[in-house]
């Protein structure tokens, strides 16, 4: 009677897998939400501010966008740990992924704000609106509509990029599946399943983005 070292995948694993799925969804939602809010502020600042502020801000964002996410994650969690303030993987991952998202969203929203013709803002002012009313009622809604497809594109890539947070130990979908693979030795089934999950989330959203884009082009 030979005892197998490995236990095959079974229904008992579904809770574990679900945890991974939910953690992926959770950290993605956190990063997209925080990244969108910060990105709005950054994009607005970039559209409004003078050359000096813009160059400084642009430099920081360029760094965030060009250093690979995986390196930012490792650097940040190592540095924070070395400073004596170790953070749990979720917190560290959320911070890095949110800032990374912010850097991309900032450029998207900047483009949105800049796409609103100045003459439309002047029309608002001529009706007695204050500066902030034109931001809130004219530039924000018109600009955001224009860049919605790009926003969705960034959000989708954040969902996929969130898999990298596994390198600092966050139990998202990829990491749970790696653990399952080492236990079950069934990489094909598991990785196909994981791939399918990302596809099921991303594909309808990207179709929706294309639909909106087409609708707005008319």
């Amino acid at each position, binding site marked *: 009677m030979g005892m197998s070292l490995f236990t095959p995948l079974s229904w008992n694993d579904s809770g574990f897998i679900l945890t991974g799925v939910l953690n992926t969804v959770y950290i993605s939602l956190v990063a997209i939400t925080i990244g969108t809010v910060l990105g709005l502020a950054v994009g607005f600042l970039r559209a409004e501010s003078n050359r000096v502020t813009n160059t400084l801000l642009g430099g920081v964002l360029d760094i965030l966008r060009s250093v690979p996410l995986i390196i930012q994650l490792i650097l940040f969690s190592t540095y924070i740990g070395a400073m004596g303030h170790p953070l749990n993987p979720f917190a560290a991952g959320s911070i890095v992924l949110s800032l990374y998202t912010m850097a991309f969203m900032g450029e998207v929203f900047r483009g949105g704000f800049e796409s609103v*013709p100045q*003459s*439309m803002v*002047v*029309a*608002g*002012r*001529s*009706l*007695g*609106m*204050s500066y902030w*009313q034109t931001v809130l*009622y*004219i530039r924000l*809604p*018109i600009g955001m*509509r224009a860049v919605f497809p790009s926003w969705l594109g960034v959000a989708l890539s954040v969902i996929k990029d969130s898999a990298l947070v596994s390198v600092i130990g966050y139990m998202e979908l990829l990491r749970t599946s790696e653990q399952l693979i080492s236990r079950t030795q069934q990489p094909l089934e598991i990785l196909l399943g994981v791939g399918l999950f990302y596809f099921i989330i991303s594909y309808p959203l990207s179709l929706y983005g294309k639909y909106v884009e087409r609708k707005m082009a008319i």
Partner: protein
Amino acid sequence: MIKIQGVYKSFDELEVLKGVDLDVKKGEVISVIGGSGSGKSTLLYCINGIEKIQQGNIIVDEIDVHAKGTNRDNLRQRLGMVFQQFNSFPHLTVLENASLAPRIVKKLKKKEAIEIAKEELNNVGLSDKFDEYPTRMSGGQQQRLAIARALAMKPEYMLFDEVTSALDPELVGEVLDTLRMLSDAGMTMICVTHEIAFAREVSDKIAFFHQGIIEELGTPEQVISNPQKETTQKFLSKVLH
């Protein structure tokens, strides 16, 4: 009453207004004509305080537009403005376009703002377009919307900046009809325009603008039929042929 006294305005090095004087009494229609680049639009922007001036005064109903303490957001409620570009808000329906400012600037109740907006839209002949989005309408309709949107703030004065210049020729008439209706209703108006025949017909006074000053000011009879200055004569012979 609007009093414009010795107004100078520059954009950096470029001096655009070089001492403009003009009075506009309640109920008057004044048309401003003149070559492109002579500073006509700039003058309108200075009247509602969207552009600063370097010298002189502009007084609207006893309020000094460019004085330090003046609340220009409040002041602009008295001064409706319509532009060459239609500037419809594309994310809002026609009714929302016209009721937005009454709601958020005058802080009227939504129902009240909509009531006023509907009334103004009816007056410009857009009663069947309340729920339409402006981008689906013709230029003439969008320009009439812009007029109704400004009127919904119940301004004392209307400033029109070449409101027919971006329109296809066949749509000019409907917008000019709207302006005629307003002038018949007694609205005080300053119209920058290239429509000389229209200006002659509706205006109490015509101001010919040339290189940042009012070169000639008078009744349509004086300025258009019997221009005294050579520059006025040259300009008119160019645009009338």
